[in-house]
């Protein structure tokens, strides 16, 4: 007959799945928010750089992700766009991923409508083109030859926002929200390093560790990593705001907190079982 520790080590995975599902669903359903502690790091660095940009600056915002990573990246896209538009910074957006265009358009139109910004004057969505890193290199010499029309098929020559933009060097900052390749590394290597433009990034939590070398060298001026990065940015953007717009990152952190605790609990249970069984079979080395 199986002992208690053996049973503990062989918990049915359906039980694990159910507990994880409940740990995410219950906090989201109860809508309880936890305070987001802001500690100095890549998120605050990103906020500080955007905050220091003067009104009228030009920022290229690249939506390099697809719906699979939307829960993590879309909240940071909303928070960043709100920050940029509130500061009267002009946004030229594009995508290195085909499905990023529609997701970007959703963010831009929604924030623009809420803040009364005008398309083609305050922002434009250039759309998607294939090529990844090569596309960025081509944009380095002439953006209008790569994107002669925007997402809706209108000529970029007729847009006031594009009057002073001819090449990547005309931007004050580039921000890539990326879920993989092509994404942040391509922007760093092909745009940041070549044309000396500050690059900021946003990525999923699992890919954040791989970008720390770029933060260490200053090639990346800030990074929003996963839902935590999005929640940090949402919190920073809301400071001093009378009626902050609803965000999805901060409510998501409560669910993520509980889910992390549950996963840690399962790891501890697994190890209790493992060490007990090991001791029984001949002692812990």
């Amino acid at each position: 007959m199986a002992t208690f520790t053996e049973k503990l080590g062989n918990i049915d995975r359906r039980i694990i799945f159910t507990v994880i599902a409940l740990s995410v669903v219950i906090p989201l359903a109860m809508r309880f928010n936890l305070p987001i502690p802001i500690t100095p790091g890549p998120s605050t660095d990103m906020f500080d750089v955007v905050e220091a940009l003067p009104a009228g600056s030009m920022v290229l915002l690249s939506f390099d992700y697809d719906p699979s990573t939307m829960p993590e990246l879309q909240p940071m896209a909303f928070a960043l766009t709100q920050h940029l538009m509130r500061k009267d910074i002009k946004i030229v957006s594009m995508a290195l991923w085909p499905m990023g265009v529609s997701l970007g358009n959703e963010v831009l139109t929604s924030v623009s409508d809420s803040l009364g910004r005008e398309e083609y004057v305050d922002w434009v969505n250039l759309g998607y083109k294939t090529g990844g890193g090569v596309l960025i290199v081509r944009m380095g010499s002439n953006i209008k030859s790569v994107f002669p029309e925007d997402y809706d098929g209108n000529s970029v020559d007729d847009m006031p926002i594009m009057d002073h933009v001819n090449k990547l060097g005309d931007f004050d900052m580039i921000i890539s929200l990326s879920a993989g390749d092509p994404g942040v590394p391509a922007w760093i290597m092909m745009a940041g390093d070549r044309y000396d433009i500050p690059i900021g990034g946003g990525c999923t939590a699992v890919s954040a560790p791989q970008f720390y070398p770029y933060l260490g060298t200053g090639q990346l001026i800030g990074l929003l990593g996963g839902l935590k990065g999005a929640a940090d940015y949402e919190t920073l953007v809301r400071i001093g705001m009378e009626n902050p717009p609803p965000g999805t990152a901060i409510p998501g952190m409560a669910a993520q907190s509980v889910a992390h605790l549950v996963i840690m609990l399962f790891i501890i249970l697994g190890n209790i079982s493992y060490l007990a069984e090991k001791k029984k079979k001949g002692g812990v080395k």
Partner: protein
Amino acid sequence: MRLFVPLTITFVAGIIMILQFFVPATQSMGESLQEWYMIVASFAIFIGAANLLQVHAHRIRFKGRNWKYSPVTIVGFTAMVLTGLIFGIEKGTPFNFLFLEMVAPMSATMFSLLAFFVASAAFRAFRASNWRATLLLISAFVVMLGRVPIGAMIWDRIPLISEWIMQVPNLAGQRAVMIGAAMGMVATSLRMIFGIERSYLGGAD
């Protein structure tokens, strides 16, 4: 000839792309090659779409493994293409509705399943079997707590320790991996340019 032509194209294109950084006269040739690359990459999308239809049509015809899912793929593909071509892709169109209300939630759902498998795999495999694994386990716990607000509620220094782990040991490891991968990439690229590495030709010797 079957080997000579692709190897020559690879050699000439590779050399031009390197020379354009050092010889201004080759810069325009490099730019032309980049233009060609983007055109070829655009065609690859059509090849991918045609291949998808061909694979699933073949599976339905010969009742291959899981063939019942193939009609769903073809119907979904056709619906997106037709709504996009007929009504456009702007906000408020049927294409945009299908994308935001069906494609987006379904894709996000697939990615979210990762959390369940990570939890199950961590429970079964994340064991403190020796001091190195224990160190990894402790680091993982600190980073996991440091990434959520509850970590700071337990002890306000946890987020700082978590950030230190990311900025020092993680950075050192990542940099080592990155430098190794970059050197490997340079070596592989040179082997391809000089025709030593030929596996990209599909196994031809």
